[in-house]
């Protein structure tokens, strides 16, 4: 969609037109602006989000507070994170207004977009000061995105299916006893690096020798896993369709909060830990960009971080926030250095360069 680079002429003409239009418009409304301290408020801000428990947490924790403070409505758009990416890229390349104001994204995808230069720098946000180092994206200049919390892809299970205690190894996924009652993300996200270790490899094999993971996946495929997205895991646990899954703790906790018996653990091979973040695409009208940034700034306040992340049950980047009572000392809520010992943190550079290839390979194995 975006290979054509020679569209500069059209673009500059368009920019000239909008520029001159803005000058005319500016001249007309300038007197009014003298007294206005902030740019004109848009009717609404569109934030791409994940559905289910995730969307509810963002709405209650961040969006409602933002609307109360500014009067700007927030609309959540549940387009998939991978799908919105090429749409924003195309819009920025072609000088069109991007389809959303704020993208709630995995740090890996956000970094890919940042490297492509489609994200707005957030360095001037007032609430960045004092956040944990986790908030700062690695290997990027400034803040083309800001990380908002960490999370763990845990081994979630139904205790009733495991009378002898929690699963000790990820090998339960290929145990014929659980055939058809296991689940993974539909692109293998959160599990592929761990699968290298389960398949007999070491941390040093990532990313250059992924073969152990692919071999493990071929065995896993015979065990008929369900493949889905965040909200699916919650539904599957609720409907009693699965016994064990590799999923973010949030989804298992959402089922637990609805009264379903679900627990989670970190098996001996470890679990992947990662972060999510927020970013604002380039190409928005200046006033909308301003308010989109204000939305991100609001998400970094203590109140928003507290409510949003405690609803999700994840450790926020705002320092000193106490975990929700049910997660004190939980493996899914790592805060101290020793909590991270058995968690696998893949450098963002490795993920950026390899994750798309891993997705493709995963697809090839499971769709074939």
């Amino acid at each position: 969609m975006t290979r054509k680079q020679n569209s500069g002429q059209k673009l500059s003409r368009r920019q000239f037109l909008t520029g001159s239009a803005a000058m005319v418009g500016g001249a007309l409304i300038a007197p009014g602006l003298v007294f206005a301290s902030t740019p004109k408020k848009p009717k609404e801000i569109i934030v791409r989000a994940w559905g289910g428990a995730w969307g509810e947490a963002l709405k209650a924790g961040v969006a409602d507070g933002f609307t109360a403070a500014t009067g700007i409505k927030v609309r959540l758009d549940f387009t998939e994170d991978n799908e919105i990416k090429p749409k924003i890229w195309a819009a920025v390349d072609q000088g069109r207004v991007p389809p959303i104001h704020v993208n709630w994204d995995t740090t890996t995808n956000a970094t890919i977009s940042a490297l492509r230069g489609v994200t707005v720098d957030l360095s001037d946000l007032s609430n960045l000061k004092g956040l944990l180092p986790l908030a700062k994206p690695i290997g990027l200049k400034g803040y083309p995105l800001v990380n908002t919390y960490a999370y763990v892809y845990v081994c979630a299970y139904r205790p009733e299916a495991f009378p002898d205690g929690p699963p000790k190894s990820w090998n339960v996924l290929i145990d014929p006893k659980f055939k058809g009652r296991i689940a993974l993300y539909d692109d293998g996200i959160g599990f592929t690096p761990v699968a290298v270790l389960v398949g007999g490899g070491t941390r040093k094999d990532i990313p250059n020798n992924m073969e152990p993971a692919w071999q493990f996946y071929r065995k896993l495929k015979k065990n008929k896993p369900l493949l889905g997205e965040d909200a699916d895991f919650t539904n599957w646990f609720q409907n009693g369709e699965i016994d064990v899954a590799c999923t973010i703790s949030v989804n298992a906790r959402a089922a637990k909060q609805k009264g379903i018996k679900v627990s989670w653990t970190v098996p001996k091979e470890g679990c992947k830990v990662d972060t999510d973040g927020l970013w604002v695409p380039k190409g928005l009208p200046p006033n909308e960009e301003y308010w989109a940034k204000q939305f991100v700034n609001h998400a970094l306040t203590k109140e928003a971080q507290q409510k949003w992340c405690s609803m999700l049950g994840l450790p926020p980047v705002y320092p000193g926030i106490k975990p929700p009572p049910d997660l004190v000392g939980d493996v899914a809520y790592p805060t101290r250095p020793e909590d991270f010992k058995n968690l696998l943190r893949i450098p963002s550079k490795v993920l950026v360069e390899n994750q798309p290839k891993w997705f493709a390979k995963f697809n090839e194995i499971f769709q074939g």
Partner: protein
Amino acid sequence: MSSDKPAFKYPLSWRILDHAENVAALWPRRWSPLTGYLLLLPALLLVFVLVIGLVYIFDYSLHELDLATYRLKDAFSLVNYHVALKSATYRTVVLRSLGASFIVTAITTVLAFPYAYVMVRARSSGTRKFLLISLFLPFFIGQVVRAYGWLIILGKEGLLNTLLASLGLPPIKLIYNYPAVVLGLVQYMLPFAVLLIAPAITAIGEEIELASESLGANWVKTFRHVVIPLAKPGLVGSAVVVFTLTLTDFAMPEILGGGTTDFIANSIYDGFFQLSNPGLGSALSMILVTLGSVFVTVLFSLAGTGTLVSRENVR
């Protein structure tokens, strides 16, 4: 004022028409052979949008994705076709779509033909109208809403599983599999098939059937040797439409297939939006266009063009 006789005036519509006629007369007489083309022009231009789109997609398909920048490289290459044709995944997807096209075409034709026949031959116009309305309603309701209806019927907590549970039977998995997609597609295609077959049956005089039966053939024989052969144009048209629409369908596999029964269109979508690889998605698009054209050409050369070309342009 009232004593003034108003000057005679032609009615407004006449005057407007005269002016319009004058404007039309600006089109020189010697250009009149071109009038037909002028009338065709808007439609030709509208369809031309698709031609340009196809050219773009063909162009994209010849450029490899640069994973460092996520842009297509400038150099020409056949890598995308290589990947698409070599990959076991895409082979499975293509075979699955083709298989579904054959199955859905067969089932739909078998179901649609009696419906069309009964509808055309119905003595009472009330019956005929009832059958027509039952056909048009789902046709006008659209694919997404109908797929949603099937989700409610076949789902885990759906109508059928609730019925099973009330009989004390365990629930069975009825959605997110191949049969569910085929069912959804058959239901989607039925109106198309019936509406394409019906005119062909109308064209068969009822007296021909009577003649056949008076010569001692029972109705099965009459169907086999008289009605079905004479209805061939309609059957060919219906088969072509059902086959190509199934081959290229997106919504049913997406909604009722649960992510594990992708058709080609779903793979194209994923190529563009999941993998952010428009080159690969475009190569798959070109493969789909080719497959569809090959099938239509083969069927037309075997069975004639049926009712589709030159007379009726129904989908």
